[in-house]
């Protein structure tokens, strides 16, 4: 594979930034939390709407080379509600979320008593389509309860494409088109949608909300964002869709296209295109790869601890040979994924 000097420098820069949160960052965070006058472990309430729990499972895959998700749960956050992990059931569980909400001031201040609110999965307009639980005799519709808790949250994190933009639930419905934010059409009441639509209505966007798409969210993307928030007491810099583009001063996550980091880019530039999915070498854009339109650092970061800097695995990696299906983009899932495209301009 031929790599130009420019490509090499770009890949090298990504490798450094993409290695994920380092132990140094983690130590810095732990010191910040433990310092005199430090805020202590922040309460986190995490709800899942219309989703498949894939983002929770993915987050559980977090591993920084030294420590895994258990370290985050033990040392960095106080996870008071998460339906997959929590011990509490029924009213006992709802009481935990209510206690955090009731203990927080109406205008968010510091963590604690204010809290971080995380959503995975989409929300629905329709009564009964997504019920979170029951508070005494009242059934809790996800959108009502989440909107209530959002008002007092210091930070609101939408993790995964369903939570951000509606995700797979939007097939056949009103997909948010891939257009600049200023011209985004209002979402006018489809049955499923993400927080991007909700936060505008509820007034806690953009100042307090961050959108971390992906199907699922990469564990590093979520944990890095949390670390940035806790270390800096501020959201990371974001693009027009609210996606983080820099963490702790390093450009990363959603700041560049899959294509710009792809080891198959030299083949693209040389006009060497695959004619079917499964080609281990050539550029897959003519059979549907959306890497040119998709912002995420999968090639640099790799998935599931398989390696970084283009040596790990992701959907269109050499050796996997499938398509980037654009899962971090607002228009995801723009079906069909498998399609023939004839006219490609390098």
């Amino acid at each position, binding site marked *: 594979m031929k790599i130009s000097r420019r490509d090499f420098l770009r890949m090298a820069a990504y490798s450094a930034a993409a290695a994920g949160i380092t132990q140094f960052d983690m130590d810095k965070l732990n010191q910040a939390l433990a310092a005199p006058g430090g805020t202590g472990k922040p309460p986190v309430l995490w709800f899942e709407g219309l989703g498949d729990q894939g983002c929770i499972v*993915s987050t559980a895959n977090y591993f920084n080379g030294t420590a895994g998700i258990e370290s985050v749960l033990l040392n960095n956050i106080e996870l008071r509600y998460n339906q997959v992990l929590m011990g509490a059931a029924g009213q006992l569980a709802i009481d935990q979320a209510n206690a955090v909400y009731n203990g927080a001031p109406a205008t968010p201040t510091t963590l604690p008593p204010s809290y971080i609110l995380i959503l995975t999965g989409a929300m629905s307009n329709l009564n009964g389509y997504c019920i979170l639980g029951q508070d005494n005799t009242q059934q809790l519709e996800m959108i009502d309860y989440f909107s209530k808790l959002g008002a007092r949250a210091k930070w609101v994190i939408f993790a995964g494409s369903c939570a951000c933009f509606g995700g797979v639930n939007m097939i*056949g419905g009103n997909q948010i088109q891939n257009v600049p934010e200023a011209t985004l059409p209002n979402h006018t009441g489809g*049955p499923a949608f993400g927080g991007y639509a909700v936060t505008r209505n509820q007034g806690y966007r953009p100042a307090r909300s961050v959108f971390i798409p992906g199907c699922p969210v990469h564990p590093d993307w979520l944990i890095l964002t949390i670390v940035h928030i806790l270390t800096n007491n501020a959201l990371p810099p974001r693009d027009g869709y609210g996606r983080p583009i820099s963490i702790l001063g390093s450009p990363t996550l959603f700041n560049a296209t899959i294509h710009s980091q792809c080891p198959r880019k030299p083949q693209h530039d040389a006009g060497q295109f695959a004619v079917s999915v499964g080609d281990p070498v050539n550029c897959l854009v003519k059979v549907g790869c959306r890497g040119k339109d998709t912002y995420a650092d999968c090639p640099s970061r790799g998935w599931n601890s*398989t390696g970084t800097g283009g040596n790990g695995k992701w959907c269109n990696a050499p050796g996997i040979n499938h398509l980037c299906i654009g899962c971090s983009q607002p228009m995801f899932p723009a079906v069909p994924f498998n399609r023939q495209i004839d006219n490609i301009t390098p």
Partner: protein
Amino acid sequence: MPTTIIDPIPRIEGHMKVILTIDNPTNGTVIDAQMVGNMYRGFENFMVGQNPLDAPLITQRICGVCPVSHAMAAVNAMDVTAKVQPTPKGRLINNLIHGAEFLHSHILHSYTLMLQDYIDMPSSTVLGAGTLNQGPWAPIYGGDRRVNLTDTNALTGNYVAALTARRKAHTICAILGGKQPHAASFIGGGNSATPSSADIATMTSLLNDIKTFITGSYIPDMNTLFGPTGYYNDYSSKGVGYGKLLSYGVFPQGTDSVNTSLLKRGIYDGTNTVLVMDQNEIVEDVLHAWYTGADNLQPFNGVTNPIVTPSPAPAPSTPTPFPGKTGAYTWNKAPRYKTNGVSKDVYEVGPLARMVVTGDYPAQISVADRGLVRPLESLKVANAMLGWLTDLGGMLSEPSFISYDIPANGVAAGLTEAIRGALGHWVKYDNNKKISHYQIITPTCWNASPLDADGKNGPIEKALIGTFVQSAAQPIEAVRVIHSFDPCMACSIHVIRDDGKTIGKFIV
């Protein structure tokens, strides 16, 4: 009669509640149970019109715990319509990804999801006293915590170790699938991946680590809880249910995908194991589910039409969200199997069904047996995977897949096993080679199903009835029975489509 509602049921996938009728307001026996699936998404409807090649990618998003199983069901259906067998190498890659998902999911269930029902993790001192006396581990339901501190510490230590073992299983999936959850490489006729010898070595190393966890921790831990001398050995007579088991079979090991599979297709009818299961005899009832339509439909004829909230929407506090259908209480349909083509019976699916049908576990059905069988099936799958890795290493230069054209008007049932039980996709294509019909029956549809048209409870409901609970307010015993089935609502729920009848509850 007093009722107890547990909503949410934690440590499952998705939104589920249970309504228990208990014969005494403080403690007593469960005399009725309703399992309520509390979420509707609508995949069956929005699959219509899609490109068949996209089915493995879209349907994986049904479940983030067992996406590979959905991909395999979709790919199996595609291959059957085209009458194509995957290449031997492609079959091995598929089995390895699917096998790694089995290991991940069983470990996830037994430790991350189930263990807190039995041990008082907040009292553990293994990570330092009081370390776990906080969210997400505390508070928990009290009552009937029998495990002493030494064993609680050991089990809690393995709860942490299990996170690592599970993560390594996902790394194996990603080495062949690109990422996990939601792998990329599932295509008709095999798999798109072309692993290297270095990949084989990495996967072998990871798999050996996981196998060490299974033999050194997982099997002994489940024996500590459920074995003949275990703390909860009385659970070998609890949560029995109907006593009938059904398996589609999984992990084909040759061109005969049914008879040579690692885990067999068949039923245990309560008396005998029969190595035949005919999908034509599967039907679904919707009488007690929030759908319109007829009962007793085979999935090739099935429909998924949700009751839509009438306008104006009822207030959120309305206890029954869909007053339009009397007697309905869940988003789950009720799948049933006609034993011998006649008697419409209720069957339990899952690892116990697979292992009993395959002949690797005695025909004992209970909460304890469901707990004991998971590490045993994990070991069987891990050992098979080591062989498949060796085989794969010997054919790295062979084709991973065989290309074919999607046939017009194709019809197929794609059957496989998800980790928590039998999974099927019933698929038809139209003459433009687009999907024209897609019905899905997931394992939790079977296990968490409601009353059927004949008035028979679903398997979990049946297993709950008769369970004695020491506290009607915190019925931990009922949670144990439910968790023994490893329910997954994300899977069992059908999906939303924008049908124009939506209500403007939230308007931007």
